């Protein structure tokens, strides 16, 4: 029935430009919306955002104690963890890194054999928690010393060599010094000798496995109990940092719950203010909306236009509030929430704005244009 060469529905680009023009034309409404959203974002950032940053710091400190590190041990040597266990376990998708240690033996500096230091065979590469701070990482047949073993072994700047009970008569070159941090700080006084693949090492006493995330530790523990290559797998002791994880959950839960409640209150108040603002705008534009219906705007086009107009005012408001909140936090506490938190807050606020504006837009779009336009 339509004979016009026009589409009969608004072009998306034109609708967006029209929405921006409408936002600019309705100065009072737009400024109110910008200020409300800026206030909401600012309030959330300086309260919940600060709490989130503090929570992240505390959790990070707890994580440093090793919430993701799982230790497999064979204290009595009965389990017989096989030397290729680290390589096998590294292929599990939830594992970040893994390495194994053989049974302890004593080493001394053959040139100055005064003190003895514990040493273990190392299978796998040194993890990030054992960074080399002097020299280089060991190749097979070479050793690295923990920072606490350097002085007892009288190792100089150019390092030296060690000889021990498990090393035969040959001295092994010490090519670097590692720093034992976090959950592996217990290795600070140890010498690690990188094992040859075929040097006759029969079993391992420890295998350390770092999980990708705290959330997978429990699941990974079950996998390790059944998947670790060992002569007597049932005899392998699997230790997880359950206490640290529980503490982490309590800290994150308590702090998170409080900040989430505060955020919900601020957002709830913000949603009411936004809905009232949009309602006032829609009421003041009743005749205008009726005119547009009369000119051929479909209900969906009218709703889309009103929501786009809302978004046109909301985006600058969210940006303004976010920037002001971050600047305030930086100036007062020097602790900023994560990028993920800030982006999530901005997205959530925009969604909340559109959700609050939608009922108003739907109501405005379903009004009978004739009743609005009729001149008595």
């Amino acid at each position, binding site marked *: *029935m*339509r*004979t*016009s060469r*026009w*589409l*009969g*529905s*608004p*072009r998306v680009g*034109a*609708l967006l*430009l*029209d929405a921006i*023009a*409408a936002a600019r*034309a*309705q100065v009072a409404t737009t400024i109110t919306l910008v200020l409300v959203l800026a206030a909401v974002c600012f309030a959330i950032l300086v309260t919940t955002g600060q709490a989130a940053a503090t929570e992240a710091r505390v959790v990070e400190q707890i994580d440093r104690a090793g919430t993701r590190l799982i230790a497999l041990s064979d204290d009595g040597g009965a389990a017989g963890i096989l030397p290729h266990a680290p390589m096998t376990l590294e292929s599990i998708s939830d594992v970040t890194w893994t390495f194994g240690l053989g049974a302890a033996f004593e080493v001394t500096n053959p040139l100055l054999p005064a003190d003895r230091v514990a040493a273990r065979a190392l299978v796998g590469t040194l993890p990030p928690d054992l960074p080399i701070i002097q020299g280089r990482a060991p190749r097979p047949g070479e050793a690295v010393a923990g920072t606490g073993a350097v002085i007892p072994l009288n190792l100089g700047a150019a390092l030296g060599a060690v000889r021990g009970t498990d090393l035969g008569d040959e001295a092994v070159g010490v090519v670097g010094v590692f720093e034992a941090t976090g959950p592996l700080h217990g290795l600070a006084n140890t010498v690690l000798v990188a094992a040859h693949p075929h040097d006759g090492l029969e079993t391992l006493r420890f295998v350390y496995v770092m999980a990708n995330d705290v959330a997978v530790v429990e699941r990974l523990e079950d996998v390790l109990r059944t998947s670790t290559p060992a002569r007597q797998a049932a005899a392998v002791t699997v230790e997880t940092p359950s206490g640290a994880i529980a503490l982490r959950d309590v800290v994150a839960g308590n702090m998170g719950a409080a900040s989430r409640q505060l955020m919900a209150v601020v957002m709830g108040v913000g949603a009411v203010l936004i809905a009232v603002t949009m309602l006032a705008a829609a009421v003041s534009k009743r*005749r*205008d909306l009726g*005119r*547009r*219906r*009369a*000119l*051929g*705007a*479909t*209900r*969906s*086009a009218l709703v889309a236009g009103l929501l786009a107009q809302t978004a046109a005012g909301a985006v600058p408001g969210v940006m303004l509030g976010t920037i002001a909140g971050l600047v305030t936090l930086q100036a007062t506490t020097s602790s900023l929430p994560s990028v993920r938190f800030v982006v999530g807050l901005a997205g959530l606020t925009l969604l909340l704005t559109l959700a609050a504006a939608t009922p108003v837009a739907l109501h405005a779009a379903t009004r*009978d*244009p*004739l009743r609005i*336009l*009729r*001149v008595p």
Partner: protein
Amino acid sequence: MSAGTAVGARDLTFGYSRRNPAVLQDLTLDLPVGAVTTLTGPSGSGKSTLLYLLALMVRPTAGTVMWDGVAASSLADGERARLRATDVGFVFQDALLDPSRSVLANVCDSALFAGMPRRIAGSRARELMSRFGVEHRGDHRPGEISGGQAQRVAMCRALLTGPRVVFADEPTGNLDDASAAVVWQALVDHAATGATVVVSTHDRALAARSDHEVRLTGTVAPEAGRRTPETS
């Protein structure tokens, strides 16, 4: 519906509420293509309401509005809206411009929902504004122009998409004689392109110059229950 008719009504009845008597009852008419038809009658006789009904802005209480032989008043809301956007031009009694936007933006308003490209709309709008003598008011707000100029701006908006049916509700009521003549001539010229033009007016002289006149004669005769438009 006879040949040469695009829009018409069959037994059209409309009331604003159930409590009040119908404003229009059992009205049947055909609007010829390529001609100007005037609707005349006393205030309250339903001239504006009939325009709104024929322009598919509102559904009748009973009866049918026909477009090209189809019961257009029964179409879904979205399809009626699209017909209004693309095929209808409407000049409201009080111009009804958006006071927060420029005159040029008001003229281009009808292009948005028709899906007319902005560049074409802008060019056509300036052309029409020049024709109606308001081209120098493009950047002004409606509050800064006279009532007569506002009515001419409303004419520009109605004609922007080149609609095949134009409804004008008292389009010359606020105009001086010279402006009224320009508006009337524009409506006549548009009809000459093959469009259907319907004008409601109190002006007997204007009605006399139209191709057809439909006179709405007042209240419904209780004994008849039917209003038959007088056509001259």
